[in-house]
């Protein structure tokens, strides 16, 4: 029986010719990632397991992106512990204020992850790297500790659900709308324990930015990973950036799928996920009177240059509504610099938006944009659980950068095509 890309990557890293869904394998990881929230909790298990040094100083990656620059004394202490570990272990790929970006935007940009890789990260959105034809999945701190020490991690080989994307995206519809639509259809546990593999003729028109957004939210459907096949778009993005040799795997013709779901992108309109689960997906047209107090554009889901270009195009020459707070978080320093040189930051700020250094802060209700009781945000982030961005009685609506920017101008959920663009 044939194998899927995910199964082939797992087999390859386990020294096996083939694996099938349900097998348990012990695999070598190419990258083990942690951040300032998950690393401190990994220190004790690392030490308890006899950890004196990491298995590879280049392959254990630490990004201090969640509560950094420190939000309070407790987080400052966690950051200090993380810095001490990175120094003691001599980590080559350690990113702190100044170099730091949001991890899942930073690692692809720096070429630390690429085609055929097996990546684990103590952060649930590690699945983002599937956009680059890698098998990447989130784990907890203890799994990270074990992998950092031994270079290995155990996996149950997942079944695969195939999503066949056809058709052409309408204006202002992007990767975020595609993944929200999918989660709306299958639910927050629709792909539980499974691999979500994306296929179909529409991939030829999906940028790496769109693919990263889509793979990023595979976890919101419960998936183990989300993965795209390697093609010329992957090749173009990774060439000259990813330093290790590409390992290209293709899904066999006779590979078995748990389910095959077809999606015609031509039918897709801008959508949002209403509180309190990412599966509560509605077309913007159905909820456009819903008012917002805050708009957040950024995060590992939608903080890339392509996202900022879309936001700036809508905001340019317009004005953020009076009672609305727009906060924009370019995901990495390189993205920020690019946005400055393209004039995007100026467009956003002249429209009344605030622009911040990279941080995961507001997405998880950490800092830099916490909501009060009764407040509602529209956000390009990935979760809208109860209390996700602050008070348990606040609300988060998830959307694309285009819908978020349009909503900032009007103060309620808005279809970008209803905004008059100023050139």
């Amino acid at each position, binding site marked *: 029986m044939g194998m899927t890309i995910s199964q082939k990557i797992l087999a390859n890293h386990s020294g096996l010719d083939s694996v099938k869904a349900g097998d*348990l394998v012990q695999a070598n990881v190419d990258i083990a990632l942690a951040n300032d*929230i*998950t690393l*401190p*909790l990994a220190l004790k*298990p690392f030490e*308890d*397991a*006899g*950890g*004196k*040094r990491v*298995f590879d100083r280049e392959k254990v990656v630490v990004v201090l992106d*969640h*509560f950094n620059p420190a*939000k*309070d004394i*407790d*987080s400052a*202490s*966690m950051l200090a512990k993380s810095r001490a570990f990175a120094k003691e272990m001599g980590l080559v790929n350690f990113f702190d204020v100044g170099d730091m970006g949001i991890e899942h935007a930073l690692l692809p940009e720096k070429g630390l992850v690429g085609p055929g890789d097996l990546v684990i*990260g*103590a*952060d*649930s959105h*590690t699945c983002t790297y599937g956009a680059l034809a890698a098998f990447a999945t*989130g*784990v*907890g*701190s*203890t*799994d990270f*500790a*074990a992998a950092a*020490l*031994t270079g290995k991690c*155990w996996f*149950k080989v997942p079944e695969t659900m195939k999503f066949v994307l056809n058709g052409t995206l309408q204006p202002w519809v992007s990767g975020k709308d595609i993944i929200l639509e999918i989660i709306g259809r299958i639910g*927050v*546990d629709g792909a*539980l*324990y499974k691999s979500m593999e994306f296929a179909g003729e529409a991939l030829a028109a999906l940028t790496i930015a769109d693919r990263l957004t889509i793979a990023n939210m595979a*976890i919101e459907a*419960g998936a*183990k990973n989300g993965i795209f096949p390697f093609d010329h778009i992957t090749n173009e993005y990774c060439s000259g950036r990813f330093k290790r040799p590409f390992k290209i795997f293709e899904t066999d013709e006779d590979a078995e799928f748990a389910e095959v779901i077809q999606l015609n992108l031509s039918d897709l309109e801008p959508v949002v996920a209403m509180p309190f*689960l990412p599966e509560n997906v509605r077309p913007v047209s159905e909820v456009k009177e819903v008012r917002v107090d805050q708009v957040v554009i950024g995060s590992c889901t939608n903080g890339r240059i392509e996202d900022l270009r879309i936001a700036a195009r809508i905001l340019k020459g317009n004005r953020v509504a009076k009672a609305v707070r727009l906060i924009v978080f370019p995901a990495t320093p390189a993205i920020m610099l690019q946005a400055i040189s393209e004039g995007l930051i100026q467009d956003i700020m002249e429209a009344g938006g605030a622009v911040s250094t990279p941080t995961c802060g507001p997405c*998880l*209700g*950490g800092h830099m944009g916490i909501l009060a009781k009764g407040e509602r945000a529209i956000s390009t982030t990935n*979760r809208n*659980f*109860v*209390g*996700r961005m602050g008070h*348990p009685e606040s609300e988060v609506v998830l959307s694309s950068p285009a819908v978020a920017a349009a909503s900032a101008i009007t103060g309620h959920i808005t279809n970008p095509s209803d905004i008059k663009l100023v050139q």
Partner: protein
Amino acid sequence: MAFRGKVWKFGDDVNTDEIIPARYLSFTDPEKLAEHVMEDADPSFPGKVSKGDILVAGKNFGCGSSREHAPVAIKGAGIACVIASGFARIFYRNAFNMGLLILESPEASDKIREGDVIEVDQKLGIIHNTTSGETFQVTPIPAFMDELLSDGGLVEHIKKSASPR
């Protein structure tokens, strides 16, 4: 090994933000995290849960973030085990890795009510509801997970199976 405890019932898709909100992620101490366990699902919960109590929930328990603070907070509160009709995958791994007992049983999840007193026989894989008299089977776990549990978590398993570097 059997034990008995009082049940606190929760619904489907309980996420890790509800189990331990991000505003407490600057802590790693189990007792400190336990003071806020399940706070955003039920603000009164940390005040009323007692050592040895049991959580029973619906499908997809522990969905969302990979934060191990979630099983740490539950264990820190002295909760003996979590029974659900199903678990989100990262939470599932984390629970086994750090030694929180979790049991899958759709039937138990459906029928057990808040306040019931139940007995869990881990070895036999049986849950007995002393309040209603009903008995439920636990979905068996893969042999490898069983090995992890009997070794006392991933760290002990690694120490046992590989020589430390």
